[in-house]
């Protein structure tokens, strides 16, 4: 009896230790990156043009491209993913076709991003002739976002209690009116949280963009040209560490690392907390 209790105590201690390690590794990764990178961040670094050979270049175009490609890919993926998610949550039965769609969505979600990158290269660059460009990058990134957003949409819609729908239908509303006017507003908080988390993830995506958006940038800062090459922050970090020739590559890499960490902290904490609070208030439940 005594030994069982000691075992329990030891197991509990190990579990606490595991939790401390998990939180500790995360905290040390984040703090290390900020500690190394924050001193590098200056207005010149954040907005300046990159330099290929000399030290002292900035990452302005890369920062712009990161957000530009992210926004474009969200614009492409969200409407489709919303439609597909609503279909799976509100219409789909249990037939073979539904099974096939679910299997496809899950498969798409596990396709390695480098494979999506090669696919984007064949289709958007070789067949459609869009070139190594911001547009090709955004379209390929769309493929990565879609399955995640479909799942987010489906879960947010399923979380809305069925009596909301029944009340609306009983008042004579059609199914689509019910979905659009009753279910969607109530699914919105969950949807917003999910979209923000997805966007935060897509922001740091690299493998998919190297061969579709490229490793060079337009010479004009803030170029909205869809067909310009569009190296992003994450790709630039990889490029300067692996191939770049600039003497200050460590500083650049540290600076980009800090910028990326700050961005995901904003996406994950600042943007999702309002959504979570809204959700608690509107549904009166905890997630």
């Amino acid at each position, binding site marked *: 009896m005594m030994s069982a209790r000691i*075992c329990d105590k030891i197991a509990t201690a190990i579990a606490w230790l595991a939790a401390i390690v998990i939180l500790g590794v995360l905290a040390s990764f984040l703090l290390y990156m900020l500690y190394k990178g924050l001193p590098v961040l200056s207005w010149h670094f954040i907005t300046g043009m990159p330099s290929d050979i000399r030290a002292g270049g900035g990452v302005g175009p890369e920062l712009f491209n990161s957000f530009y490609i992210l926004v474009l890919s969200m614009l492409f993926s969200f409407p489709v993913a919303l439609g597909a998610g609503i*279909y799976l949550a509100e219409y789909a039965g249990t037939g073979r076709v539904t099974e096939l769609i679910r299997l496809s969505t899950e498969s798409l979600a596990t396709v390695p991003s480098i*494979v999506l990158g090669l696919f984007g290269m064949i289709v958007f660059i070789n067949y459609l002739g869009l070139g190594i460009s911001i547009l090709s990058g955004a379209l390929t990134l769309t493929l990565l976002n879609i399955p995640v957003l479909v799942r987010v949409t489906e879960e947010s819609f399923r979380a809305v209690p069925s009596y909301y729908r029944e009340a609306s239908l009983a008042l004579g509303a059609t199914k689509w009116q019910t979905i659009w006017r009753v279910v969607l507003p109530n699914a919105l908080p969950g949807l917003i949280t999910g979209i923000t988390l997805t966007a935060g993830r897509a922001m740091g995506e*690299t*493998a998919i963009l190297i061969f579709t958006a490229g490793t060079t940038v337009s010479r004009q800062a803030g170029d909205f040209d869809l067909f310009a090459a569009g190296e992003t922050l994450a790709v630039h970090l*990889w490029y300067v560490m692996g191939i770049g020739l600039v003497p200050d590559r460590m500083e650049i890499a540290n600076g980009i690392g800090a910028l990326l960490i700050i961005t995901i902290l904003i996406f994950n904490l600042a943007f999702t907390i309002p959504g979570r609070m809204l959700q608690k208030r509107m549904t009166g439940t905890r997630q």
Partner: protein
Amino acid sequence: MSATIIDHHRLKLMYDRYVRYLLFACAFLMTFIILSIVIFVGQQGLVTFTEVSPGDFFFNAKWDPSEGQFGAMSFIAGSLLATLLAVGFGAPLGLTGAVFMAKIAPPWLREIMRPATDLYVAIPSVVYGFIGLTIMVPFIRNYLHGNTGFGLLATSIILAVMILPTIISISEDAIRAVPGSLEEASLALGATRWQTVRRVLLPAAMPGILTAIVLAMARAVGETMAVQMVIGNTPQLAKSLFMPTSTLTSEIVIEMGNTPFGSAWGNSLFLMALVLLLISLLMIVAIRRLGRGSVV
């Protein structure tokens, strides 16, 4: 008056039907996309076999495109070994963390750990790779006397960290989903919490836990950037954990930029992508067999 109302209603119902078709089209697009990926990548990859025999590709470790040698065995071995080691390091820690979050953690700590696992997912893989390159690799080189420091050990430790969130969140859900009555019965019989976890909760949650592990493997095998930065990128079979080697993903990302599209070299990289694609599809089938549907 009533006629217009009926007309209006009919219009709404018709609208209702077309919306349904539209939504179905969106959903069916998923099937269309995944099929296109299999077809396009497959077609480009399988062309390789006109110049390279399957036996050479899969069972020869000699990779030297300028000499016409396209043996990808060392990359396949590298991918599989890195994945298995990563799960070996990451799964015990992640699973313990999941048990902690589901059954032991006080509510305030759980409220911290949830967003923390989301943050783990959000850290870009290049940042993981960069941290591996600047901390892990020098550490292994200087303190473990591990050669250059590049290799499977550095890779699998970084991958283990990267797959933690997958293992934690899915296992936690699975442990939570075990009916409370099972746990209560065990505790009522005088079992301690540890005994209950080990003998009741973990066995009952096993399908979910296995799903978590398979998904983590899928993530590890497809991870590219972080792996490329710490594996050493040398096309040779790894004889130790400290020897620079290569994986399918790292080799693709390094060489794709230099290869002419449609050459035997380029095609063999697509074939490697096809192998990756098939591995990840196989894992989805495995998860389906385990009886739980949800992924991502």
